[in-house]
């Protein structure tokens, strides 16, 4: 069964395109700058208006309140934004008892919650941003160049953790990247954008 189903979708210079993402599957997407990849992800998360149909578990996006849709279809961009001073304030430990174990799995000590956001490295920020999104237990992850600012080691950590989550939660993901090698490593299926259309590659 298809987890995430997109039909006749059109936004900006992309489409109309149709594609599906199955549970446990990561779809890779690459294409030249300006081909509209990031805008596509934004529109799928309902951050911009688009035409066509997007369904999650057979529920059309407009049938859910927008915040609920964005919790289930979670968009993660290359530069995450933080609005409180410390890391911990962005997390809800009451709601997520297992959170500490997750921090550990991504290589953070228990003190991480007290860390000041402005002193985080870009690698730390990106891993924490992933954890922050996963608090909502999304069913689909939209990853927009998530490792663009990371070194090789952090990139691997990030990739492994995403793969682990997708498998464990039977979720799906769309991974946008310039790095074809990376997409080969993490994705089950790969598309290139060419003149607004998807091509297998």
């Amino acid at each position, binding site marked *: 069964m298809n987890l995430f189903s997109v039909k006749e979708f059109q936004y900006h210079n992309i489409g109309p395109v149709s594609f599906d993402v199955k549970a446990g599957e990561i779809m890779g997407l690459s294409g030249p700058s300006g081909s509209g990849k990031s805008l596509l992800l934004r529109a799928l998360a309902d951050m*911009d208006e688009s035409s066509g149909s997007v369904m999650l578990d057979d529920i059309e996006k407009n049938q859910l309140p927008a915040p609920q849709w964005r*919790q289930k279809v979670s968009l993660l961009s290359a530069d995450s934004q933080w609005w409180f001073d410390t890391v911990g304030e962005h997390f809800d430990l009451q709601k997520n008892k297992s959170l500490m174990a997750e921090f550990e799995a991504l290589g953070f000590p228990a003190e991480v919650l007290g860390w000041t956001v402005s002193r985080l490295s870009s690698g730390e920020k990106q891993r924490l941003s992933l954890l922050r999104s996963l608090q909502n237990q999304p069913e689909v992850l939209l990853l927009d160049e998530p490792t663009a600012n990371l070194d090789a080691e952090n990139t691997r950590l990030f990739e492994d953790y995403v793969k682990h989550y997708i498998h464990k939660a039977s979720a799906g993901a769309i991974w946008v990247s310039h790095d074809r090698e990376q997409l080969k490593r993490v994705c089950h299926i790969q598309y290139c954008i060419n003149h607004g259309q998807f091509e297998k590659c």
Partner: protein
Amino acid sequence: MLITLTSFDLSLASILVLLLALLSWRMHLGISQQILIAAVRTTVQLLLIGLVLKSLFANVQISWIMLIATVMISVAGWEILSRQKRQLKPAYGLTISITSLFVSSFMVTLLALLVIIRADPWYHPQYAIPLLGMLLGNTMTGIALGMDRLVQTSWQQRAIIEQRLMLGQSSVQAIEDIRRESMRAGMIPIINSMAAAGLVSLPGMMTGQILAGAAPVEAVKYQILIMFLITAGTGFGVVSVLWLLSKRLFDERERLRFDQLLK
């Protein structure tokens, strides 16, 4: 017991302004022209409003008072817009600033006239016009500050607002910090002037009444009334303008939409 000022008295005071202009001219400070123009403007504008009030007092009619009130509110609404760093769409901006002024100044003045002051008739211009004027002048500042802060900060922090939306927060949650900060920005001036009243500054209205021969304690009572009205008016005005603005900042799918708000 009010000592009437003659034209000669005013001319004496104007000599001070002329001397200042002369000094600025001799010292090349480049502000003489502005001083003189502003002095002429204040003389003409105040004389005109004096004449308007004089004929209003001679001819107490609710329709005239409503007309003056409408003009005052519209000018204040326009003034709020012109104080914004980021220009709002004019038709929309004017609608929300006038709505907020109406909620704050107009309704509060009406309440004060009908329930507290109870002049005969309740719309007597001797009370209605100065009261509305004082409320408008102060709430206008509060509304303009709150509006400017909300629009500026949310523009600067649009990436953060969108990040919060992407994490599944509602538009209300995503903007609550900015809203709180804007409320503060709008209210601080009046809170400060309440705190400083009597110790640091003698408020203008009270001073005026004392100069005109009123008993100090009576003047103080009026000043306290005015302070409370201004505070309530500013508060309601800022709350309503922030509410209207933040509704317009998002669309029905809770997306951040500056195109709905800004020029």
